[in-house]
């Protein structure tokens, strides 16, 4: 009975795994096919002459490294700034009290309901007037004020830390900024890691903001990948799209696999506590 039930669990899980990993397999499969194999009928399940030239061509057909550098710059700058700024604000909401705190916190929570694009359109118009489009200044500004979701994450973490930590410091005459910087922040590396990875992958994966704010030379890999791989007649080059997509997705997957324990814990608990 128990044995039958357990094997049913395995069967369902393996079935789910095939469905969930199948798309990755097809992506890789396509990335290894020669161009004329894509037109083969019936469909080739395996590339008959697998080669890596698609990856080389994908890097040169568009200025892959240039766009990857743009993505990397934006994502790194944003992730570092937004993590610091969110920890900063999260500390305030967790450990300090002042008139108006509740109101400010409620506003913070309700901004999570706002469709991003609603503010993005006027923001684009404003930035265009201030000649800030085609620069990375918007990401610096967005980073500096923190993200509500991450602020919430830090606030949850900081409010569960024991009071004795700061009491001793206050007795020693430590100011709040020092308490935050020297005592609370160094203890919060699991949240810092989660926040860095989350914000990095948001920006790395974002399509709308760079499509709105950046021109073709300054845009990110996400945007260029979506329409960059076409031949002279404008028809899409499936095998190069696949190779480019593999190289775009793999760093994110690798990052996730390296840090997955803490990351999953962060994602799972953030919205629930």
């Amino acid at each position: 009975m128990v044995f039958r039930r357990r094997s049913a669990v395995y069967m369902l899980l393996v079935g789910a795994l095939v469905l969930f990993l199948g798309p990755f397999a097809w992506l890789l499969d396509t990335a290894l096919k020669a161009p004329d194999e894509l037109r083969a009928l019936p469909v080739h399940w395996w590339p008959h002459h697998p080669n890596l030239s698609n990856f080389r061509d994908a890097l040169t057909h568009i200025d892959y490294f240039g766009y990857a550098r743009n993505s990397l710059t934006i994502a790194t700058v944003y992730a570092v700034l937004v993590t610091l700024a969110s920890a900063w604000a999260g500390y305030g909401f967790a450990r300090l009290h002042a008139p108006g705190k509740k109101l400010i916190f409620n506003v913070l929570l309700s901004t999570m309901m706002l469709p991003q694009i609603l503010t993005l359109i006027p923001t684009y118009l404003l930035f265009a007037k201030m000649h800030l489009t085609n620069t990375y200044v918007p990401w610096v500004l967005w980073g500096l004020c923190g993200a509500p979701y991450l602020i919430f994450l830090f606030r949850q973490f900081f409010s569960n830390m024991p009071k004795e930590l700061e009491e001793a410091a206050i007795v020693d005459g430590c100011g709040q900024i020092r308490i935050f910087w020297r005592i609370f922040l160094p203890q919060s590396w699991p949240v810092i890691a989660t926040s860095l990875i989350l914000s990095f992958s948001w920006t790395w994966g974002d399509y709308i903001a760079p499509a709105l704010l950046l021109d073709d030379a300054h845009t990110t890999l996400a945007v260029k990948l979506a329409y960059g791989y076409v031949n002279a007649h404008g028809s899409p080059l499936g095998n190069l799209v696949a190779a480019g997509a593999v190289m775009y997705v793999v760093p994110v997957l690798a990052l996730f696999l390296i840090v997955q324990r803490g990351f999953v814990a962060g994602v799972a608990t953030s919205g629930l506590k």
Partner: protein
Amino acid sequence: MSTGQITAPGAPSPSGEAAARPGPRTGAHSARGRRSLSSRRALSFYVFAGPWVLGFLALTAFPLGYALWLSLTNADGLSNNSRFVGLDNYREVFTDPETMSSLARTGIFTAITVPLTLAAGLLLAILVNQPIRARGVFRTLLYLPAVVPPVGAALTFKLIFDRDSGAANGALDALNLDGISWLMDPYARWVLVTLTLWGAGNAMIVSLAGLQDVPKELYEAARIDGANTWQSFSRITLPLLSPVLFFQVITGIIAAVQSFLPLLISLDPTPRGVTAVPEGNYLFMIHVFAQYFANGRYGYASAMLWVLFLIIVAITFLVFKLSKGAVFYAVDPEPDKPSRPRTLGGK
């Protein structure tokens, strides 16, 4: 999960709440000292919350106000003489058949994907919560697709469902069936639903966290009382999981109504082209993009987005109302207060 704050009995409260009300007989020196301490603490709150508040005012509140103003004008980004048109844009939102049908389509898409994702996530969570070998590996691999950036996911599905070279038609061909133009009507919407479900690992992880919080003793007690698997699932697991499921319904709806994945699936190899979205996938957000990019109708697009925002607020409110009584909080969701002990008793 939420432990609240534990204050040692008799420990002086550093929050300054008591110190803010100095007794009349307190010595002048110490009263001033305490008051300045508490006002210093209040000041430090503003120092810490300040950047976000400033950012909110400059990058959210101001653009929102601007969007509201735009929605009352016929701004098109080309001519400089946009003028105030009152509620014309809003009237158009509710009378334009294309806007209304895209809104209805978004509603259907949400009604299909949110429950499906929830159910798939819960099923997977239950499976990977069983005492089996390598369940950590199963958890990680099933979650993997949820990490793939939307553009990467959309491109992958475009390749799978390609008419000539895709795996989907390859499989049909192997079964001696005719190939299908998956990315066109009437199949495109199901490609979209499949793509959305591919990320069900997210729901799995959230449900799993909820499952792991259910005290094991409850199942044992139920088993001793002679409950079968279904009974302990429906009487213990579901009620205790209801806050987690409720959270997913809310966030799922908010995400689904804003979905712009069809844009990425059917993106032409031309920059910013939104021309070739099949009707079945022409969701509200795609209509917004079409009006904004293709027609440059900033005013109308802003009005549509404001309507969408109000719809989100209304739905959230409604779900909160409807779920009252159905959602069971064993743990006080307000972490500022000391949490109640975890009990199965009534209110």
